[in-house]
């Protein structure tokens, strides 16, 4: 049986939050955390997820030029990159941390991206597994 990964998704409330919430309700291993803007997410929050045993962390931000707060979705890019560098130092595959950009009406794209993410996470396996 394929490994069931533990995934935390930080989702901007102006992006596909409603859709993501509904999807997470159907899967016990998927956690959604709502944020007012993807720019609110800090590397501490991301790294704590991995520390607590999550196999994958996804940040969902608004598409370019559509950020309600001008450029929060750009700022989070730098935060995620800093977090990725920490992961590399810890010898954790940095594919476990990704940013996806969606507009609120991109339901279908979110669903297909979500399936892809679960597959990737399943293949990467548990974060506790030795590389």
């Amino acid at each position, binding site marked *: 049986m394929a490994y069931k990964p533990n995934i935390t998704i930080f989702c901007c409330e102006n992006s596909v939050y409603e859709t993501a919430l509904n999807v997470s309700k159907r899967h016990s291993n998927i956690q959604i955390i709502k*944020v007012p803007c993807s*720019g609110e997410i800090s590397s*501490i929050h991301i790294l*704590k997820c991995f520390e607590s045993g999550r196999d994958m962390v996804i940040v969902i931000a608004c598409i370019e030029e559509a950020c*309600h707060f001008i450029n929060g979705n750009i700022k989070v890019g730098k*935060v995620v990159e800093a977090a990725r560098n920490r992961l590399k130092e810890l010898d954790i595959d940095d594919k476990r941390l990704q940013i996806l950009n969606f507009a609120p009406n991109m339901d279908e794209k979110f669903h297909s991206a979500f399936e892809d993410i679960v597959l990737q996470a399943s293949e990467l396996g548990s974060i506790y597994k030795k590389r």
Partner: protein
Amino acid sequence: MSILILGGGIAGITAATYLGEQGQKVALIEREEGLGGRLNNLFSVYDLGISPKDFVSRQITKLKKFSNVDIFTCAELIETKGHVGNFNSKLKIKNSKPVKIKHGAIIIATGVNVSAPKMDCNSQKIINHTHLEDYISNNKIKRLSKVIFLCDFAKEDSQIIALSTLKNALLLREKLRCEVSVLSRNIKVAGKKFEQLYTAVREKGVIFSAVEGVDVEGLHLICDWLVIGESILPDHGTEVLSLTLGVERDKQGFFQNNNVHFMPNLSNRKGIFFAGACHIDAGLNDILDDSLTAAYAAHNLLEKNTIEIDEKTAEVDEEKCALCLTCIRSCPHKAIDIEFSREVGKKAAKIVEEACFGCGICASLCPSRAIQLREYEDEKILKLIG
């Protein structure tokens, strides 16, 4: 003063009139000697009934009757401090002392710059819309047999040019009965009374030719006049103004209005609104509506003499603040000041609650975790993560 309006064109005048009627105190700031803006130089506007100059004169006369509206001409904004409900601005006035004004909101109505394209050839037959308006108003037109308008030809033209093309095509056809053609890729009739104008123009026998797919290299045109639209560019004071007021501009340099999450007249700062051509590309009718919307928004904000504070704002723990200024530099809404804190005896960042949008970007980037966003505190999120 309750509301500062920058720009004395029709947008600023319309907004000021509405606010004057509502009993608000208004300061209207105009850079030139007189009010009226671009409407002063137009010969006609479709379906207006009177000349644009008379129209704007009437509006100015009506506006000047309000004792609660102060008009400053030959004046420019140098500096604005403070936040929504409590702005302090300094004006530079030609041949006069600078003036300081306290106000609760700002409406930016600074309009656009109409810029004639540089021409490679020096032909008397190639003219732009400003020339055309000039010739028509000064009765300089003798006999013409054929006039061609280029609209939306090499690049996407502004609505202002499209409207001007149709209006002038109609005028030439009615006045001179010459052959009038419009060469274009697209005429987009999105706007108040635009479709009505287009129908009138077609009914008068103006010829429309589509140029999509036509090889325009070596195109040979036979006509008395070839009319080319000017470029509509941001007003030359826009960049400085955006820095003075901390408001965003879009990629073309106009004031930002293309963000899908923003109501059109709102800016990235609470209490600062946009009205008119400086942020939308439209003809007079839509500009009038837009100006009223901005004025209404400003009035609504200040009507109760209180500013509502959102609960979901950020807060600084002054003890932890190292004054690195990261938050101040990254706040998209210019909502953070530096203040001396009595409690901890030092200067620290201070979130101005009434100006805060609750995005949390400052909280995310603060290196000492000194800023917490209410309802999204670190403790709360870390607990969710488990």
